[in-house]
């Protein structure tokens, strides 16, 4: 599922006593604006004494990467609820965009820890320099002369309609 990054800006509703309440801004990863606004209120509720009924959202904008054609190493700090307790972890992903990295993160977390979007709080998504990366799995791609074969290659038909259940010959899975 493609995730988008939204900037949600909101505040407590202005009253007679408080004409200019403090404005809060959050960067939320969500699949759509509705979910983004909902998560905004979830976080604001937890950190401030503002409920959705007492507040107003001033704007929701989608944020895009400045350079979506450059590969970056994203270090993501995360807090998630596992079945027994909450855990803080730091994970790294290499991708072109922040949303790409977060999409990878969410599928990875779902696979490894069986957590879902709603049980996770993404605290920080930061593009780190190769020197600052902490994981060997990310570091292994920091090689300007990177070279590896594709040992076991399962080729598939160029279009789904050409996929066949049975084949006349065994496929060759190497040297391609």
């Amino acid at each position, binding site marked *: 599922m493609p995730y988008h990054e939204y900037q949600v800006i909101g505040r407590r509703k202005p009253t007679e006593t408080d004409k200019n309440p403090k404005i809060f801004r959050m960067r939320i990863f969500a699949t759509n604006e509705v979910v983004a606004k909902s998560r905004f209120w979830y976080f604001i509720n937890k950190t401030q004494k503002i409920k959705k009924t007492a507040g107003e959202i001033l704007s929701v904008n989608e944020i895009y990467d400045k350079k979506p054609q450059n590969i970056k190493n994203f270090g993501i700090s995360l807090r998630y609820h596992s079945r027994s307790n909450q855990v803080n972890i730091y994970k790294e992903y290499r991708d072109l965009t922040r949303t790409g990295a977060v999409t990878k993160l969410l599928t990875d977390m779902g696979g490894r820890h069986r957590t879902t979007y709603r049980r996770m709080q993404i605290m920080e998504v930061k593009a780190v320099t190769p020197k600052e990366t902490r994981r060997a799995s990310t570091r292994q791609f920091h090689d*300007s002369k990177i*070279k590896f074969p594709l040992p076991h290659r399962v080729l*598939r038909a160029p279009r789904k309609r050409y996929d066949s259940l049975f084949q006349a010959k065994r496929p060759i899975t190497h040297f391609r």
Partner: protein
Amino acid sequence: VMSLFTRFVEIGRVVLVNYGPYEGKIAVIIDVIDQNTALVSGPQKITGVPRHAISFKRMSLTDIKINIERSVRQKALIKAFTEGQVLEKWEKTSWAKKRAARVKRANMNDFDRFKAMLAKKRKSHIVQDAQRKLIKASRTK
């Protein structure tokens, strides 16, 4: 054993895109994102493949390789691509020729098929003539 492999994923490797909107086009690996994805570019002006991320599952490695820097930009890529004569090298390979022949065959009309039939007949006639001569020559020996 690495020596058994001849085609590697490396920066500058020319690949054939197998699946997706750029299917059938060739592109160059500019960088490796992670173990499933590479950053690839046509260059767009020459082959039509823009600079984008593509899975290794969607490409086939070829024997052609050019010398480029990691994450090179379009201008330098076009220069290396044309200097390396990649398109010419690719079109000369039997792989590319087979693909082109398949396309040609699929686009034949009835007249083309008629011409092909006549050509096949002529060819088999020449081959059988030569064969008959050889058999006769070996028999009279």
